């Protein structure tokens, strides 16, 4: 943790630290109301407007202005649905509304990864064991070495290539994470255990491909439009979303000043410890309102990790308090511009591709 200058907190301080964050959580919870409900419904309306208008424009064929606009609108709709609507709803952030259409347990998002997979790998594993090497699979997703604490393998030498592939196919990377194929190939997971998961995965994959790459192109054919233009427009939209979500998510926990933790350090962890780990392991992105919305407010990754079940639109106002609390307890509040944070992530990917000795001599 040489890249951070955090004050170590004793038990009493940790308790007070947790109490302050708990109080902030309570204050925000108590103030949830019709504004938040209206907001998430407006986000959903925007998702529908973008996706449906994008698909409509794609029906006009290759004519560049409409084709490009259609693809971009569809990409925008998919990004919003993925980040601000799906991710946040599936965290149970809007469960307090009692609206069955926005219930975290039932929402199914528009990507190939089944929501149930995500609720396990992300909501449970990643959010409970954030940045604990060996417990949080999101640390490198098994294909990238980002921290010196990760054991080096020859395979990591080509990780810039793996990362590029992962970025291009990000929704598939997220989806297969839950299948634990590495465990299967090592023989620690039986075929019988894997089969039901595979069936669930295939069913969702079939639905997504059926919709984007079959239904709408065939619809175009029937309407006498250009099916290929529709197909390629859908591919482009999914590709753009993959790249965007990859960039945002890698900036959340793998920036230069993000910390990782050992398995031993989380044994018997208190609430204060957990809060502290979330603060140290996450990093924020600074930017305008549009950036925050397009990242699903994961630009406030620190606040999201401290309060994963509070509506994300509140993170911006909570960030003021969190920053002040972090400062009072001598903790670094890791925040920077999107470009700046992304550059540090890319530097990590490049640097830690090499084994430890080699990395010491730049």
């Amino acid at each position: 943790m040489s890249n951070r200058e955090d004050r170590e907190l004793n038990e009493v301080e940790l308790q007070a630290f947790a109490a302050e964050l708990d109080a902030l959580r309570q204050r925000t919870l108590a103030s949830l109301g019709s504004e938040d409900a209206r907001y998430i419904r407006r986000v959903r309306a925007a998702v529908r407007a973008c996706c449906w208008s994008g698909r409509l424009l794609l029906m006009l064929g290759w004519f560049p202005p409409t084709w490009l606009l259609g693809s971009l609108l569809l990409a925008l709709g998919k990004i919003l649905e993925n980040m601000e609507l799906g991710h946040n709803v599936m965290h149970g952030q809007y469960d307090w509304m009692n609206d069955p259409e926005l219930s975290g347990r039932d929402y199914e998002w528009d990507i190939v990864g089944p929501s149930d997979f995500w609720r396990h790998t992300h909501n449970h594993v990643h959010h409970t064991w954030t940045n604990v090497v060996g417990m949080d699979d999101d640390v490198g997703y098994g294909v990238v070495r980002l921290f010196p604490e990760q054991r080096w393998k020859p395979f990591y030498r080509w990780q810039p290539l793996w990362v590029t592939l992962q970025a291009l196919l990000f929704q598939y990377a997220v989806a297969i994470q839950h299948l634990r194929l590495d465990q299967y190939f090592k023989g620690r997971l039986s075929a019988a255990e894997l089969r039901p998961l595979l069936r669930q995965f295939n069913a969702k994959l079939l639905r997504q491909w059926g919709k984007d790459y079959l239904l709408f192109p065939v619809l175009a054919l029937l309407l006498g439009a250009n099916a290929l233009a529709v197909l390629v427009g859908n591919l482009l939209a999914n590709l753009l979303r993959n790249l965007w979500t990859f960039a945002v998510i890698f900036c959340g926990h793998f920036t230069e000043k993000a910390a990782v933790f050992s398995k031993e350090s989380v044994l018997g962890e208190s609430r204060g410890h957990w809060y502290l780990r979330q603060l140290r392991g996450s990093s924020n992105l600074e930017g305008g309102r549009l950036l925050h919305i397009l990242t699903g407010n994961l630009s406030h990754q620190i606040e999201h990790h401290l309060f994963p079940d509070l509506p994300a639109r509140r993170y911006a106002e909570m960030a003021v308090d969190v920053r002040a609390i972090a400062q009072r307890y001598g903790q670094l509040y890791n925040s920077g511009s999107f470009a700046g944070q992304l550059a540090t992530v890319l530097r990590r990917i490049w640097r830690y591709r090499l084994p430890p000795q080699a990395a010491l001599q730049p």
Partner: protein
Amino acid sequence: MPLLPLAAVRPLNPLLMPWRRLAARAWLREADCDYWLQRLHPLLSLNRVYARLLARRWVSDDMLALTLQCNGNACDWRPGQHVQLFREVDGVRLSRCYSLTAVDGRGRIELAIKRQAGGRLSGLLQDHLGIGECVELSQASGSLRWPSQAQGVLLLAAGSGITPLLGLLRQALASGYSAPVTLLHYVRERGQRAFAEELQALMQRHANLQVRWSLTGQAAQGDELSGRFCPAHVPERAAEQALACGPHGFVAAVQRWWQGGETPASLQSEAFSPAPVDAGEQTCVRLAFRRSGVACQGDTAQSLLEQAEAQGLRPMHGCRQGICTRCTCQLLSGRVRDLRSGLVSDEPGQAVRLCVSVPLGDVEIDL
């Protein structure tokens, strides 16, 4: 302006079947289908029940009867059953249970809403729900039935407990039930005798019906009874079967009387308030896990997750500390307290996290 007339809503319902099947198999998103259907008419929905308010009628000083036209998803409802009425207040979809006082075959129903002191929904519905507005209802449930073979029926109602019994009574009399029927209605004040005029008119038309009111908070006049339920109020007329509905205390008193002997052969009862439980102390409560079909004794100290696991259930869960929301389940009835914040939830349909919730009294969970 809806594109379709109200009259087309129910006939259209069977045509939605293919869409319903696709949505059930996750090929379509139900919320998106409902969005487009509601552009056609605000009552249309694949699976949810929406109803339009047709008429409002005061039936006592504090009770308002609403006549509603439901969409086609309300089928096979019976008087005497109850539905949840949903209404969004400050972003939260609240619901309250109301009995069906009348049901016709074309989706027209009547509910009666009593004003609750300090209630969040009843006052709002009475004061602000206007003719033509749409509300959402749940599917009807409840097992009270008219014992049509009985040689005499005794109806015991307290407060708004009159509503399911009135629904059953209207239907029974309309279909020609001719054995003696006695209805005792317990109210605090004279002005709370809901549907009194209609009941008096029914008495004149049907010689087999006798209705008496008992006032618990005012001096009795004429043939009125006085005080809370006591066996002496029950007339000598033989009644084979009894139905009782009211708050917990009233129903418990009736059940004690019924268990004493010399009484009707069978008793159906429905209480609409739970037994009070002291918070803080460790007490025994009834837990019901509906999907698993498990009912058991529980306590108010352990989390619902631990208690469910102690029953051999294996609910989906994750962090066991309230972070990951994997164990979120719907609270169907009762009150629970969040161990972290002390916040009490008693809203039916509220999502609660089993790992950080303890019951405060009898609860039913959708697990």
